[in-house]
């Protein structure tokens, strides 16, 4: 059970959340917000932090109370700090939950300064962030005895032929931050390389293809080697981009133990997602480790373990005990919804950077 003095809070708790891009490659922001609203009830104010004007959750006024645009991660730490200071003077944010891989480096860098502003976070360290990076995942797996597919990092398209000879087809070609393409032939590999390079830059990761069942695990760990919550989910409907559009919670101790082993090995602090492939011989391969909650995180709350709420409690310094019970067979089925807004709202965010 998690313990929070905020269930009957009289003071409004203000939480800032990024990742409002609830599109076909969804960010976790909306799921996090929904779980927080479930967990804290009234007296909760949600501040959306958006990079782009068309991030869909910005316009869901029953979920997001106010949105501010923030500078892209490439603008650097100082630009982000300056913008957050401006926002903090108005909003008095208690806790901030970043939800994008690409922005985490800057937020971790600002952790102490944010705290000085009164904004609490619960984030992994830079070292932890680097260890689970796609580029370093194989070394991490080897070091801690965790099964990961063979992979190589390449900087030039000419290296693809050698990788193909070494790993064989099919191959998985992965972008630095996001996206992966399964290729059957060297010409497809070249195409995928150029496409991912153009979008996410170098390096490109070339990974052995593992055939099996796709399972994701959402977890929360305390930074001292302990997991406080683990929810495994089997993907039931997968989009062309490889995203789960429907999924179901499953009960499997092997998966729970794998998440615990990861948290212990990495001393992970904060939310995380393990992308797992279970092959025909029941081996569990860690395909990727995402350093934040997944987009389907609301399922954790629906299944009985509200991980975003637990993370807020941890950030606030409240006592949080490990949860082990949850409902297996709880499903999510995502849907698309045309939200109608007036151009004035769009204009306001575009012109003034807030809505």
């Amino acid at each position: 059970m998690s313990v929070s003095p905020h269930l009957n809070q009289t003071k409004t708790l203000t939480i800032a959340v990024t990742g409002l891009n609830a599109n076909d490659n969804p960010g976790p922001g909306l799921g996090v917000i929904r779980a927080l609203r479930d967990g804290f009830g009234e007296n909760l104010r949600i501040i959306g932090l958006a990079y782009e004007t068309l991030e869909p959750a910005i316009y869901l006024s029953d979920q997001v109370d106010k949105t501010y645009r923030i500078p892209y991660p490439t603008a650097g730490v100082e630009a982000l700090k300056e913008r957050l200071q401006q926002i903090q003077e108005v909003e008095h944010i208690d806790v901030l939950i970043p939800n994008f891989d690409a922005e985490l480096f800057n937020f971790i860098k600002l952790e102490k300064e944010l705290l000085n502003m009164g904004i609490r976070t619960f984030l992994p360290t830079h070292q932890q962030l680097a260890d689970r990076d796609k580029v370093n995942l194989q070394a991490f797996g080897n070091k801690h005895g965790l099964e990961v597919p063979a992979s190589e990092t390449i900087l030039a398209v000419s290296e693809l032929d050698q990788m193909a000879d070494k790993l064989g087809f099919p191959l998985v070609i992965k972008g630095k931050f996001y996206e992966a393409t399964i290729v059957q032939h060297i010409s497809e590999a070249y195409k995928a390389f150029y496409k991912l390079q153009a979008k996410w830059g170098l390096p490109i990761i070339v990974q052995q293809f593992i055939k099996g069942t796709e399972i994701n695990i959402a977890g929360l760990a305390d930074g001292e080697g302990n997991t406080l919550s683990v929810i495994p989910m089997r993907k039931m409907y997968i989009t062309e981009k490889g995203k789960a559009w429907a999924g179901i919670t499953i009960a499997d101790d092997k998966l729970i133990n794998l998440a615990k082993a990861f948290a212990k090995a990495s001393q992970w602090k904060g939310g995380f997602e393990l992308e797992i492939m279970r092959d025909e011989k029941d081996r569990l391969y860690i395909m990727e480790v995402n350093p934040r909650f997944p987009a389907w995180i609301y399922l954790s709350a629906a299944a009985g373990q509200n991980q975003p709420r637990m993370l807020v409690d941890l950030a606030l310094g409240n006592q949080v005990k490990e949860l082990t019970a949850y409902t297996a067979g709880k499903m999510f089925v995502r849907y698309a919804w045309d939200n109608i807004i007036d151009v004035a709202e769009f204009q306001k965010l575009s012109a003034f950077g807030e809505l």
Partner: protein
Amino acid sequence: MKLKANIATSENGFIFNPATGDSFTSNGIAAEILTYMKAGESEAEIKQKILDRYEVELCQLERDWDDYMLQLKEANLLDL
């Protein structure tokens, strides 16, 4: 042949394996057999009930039984 302990079944023949997330639908007679298996009845007891209740020859029942058990095994629903 024993059904895995964690397998959930319903009267209408829906089968759910909470360890894998797999779900299946079965017809009336298959659902009935599952109910007996869940109750811990032996293969011989279940077969006798089917013979008593339905017009079916023993040899036909045996063939259908083997076929059904094979399907349950392939679906990873049996405790082997």
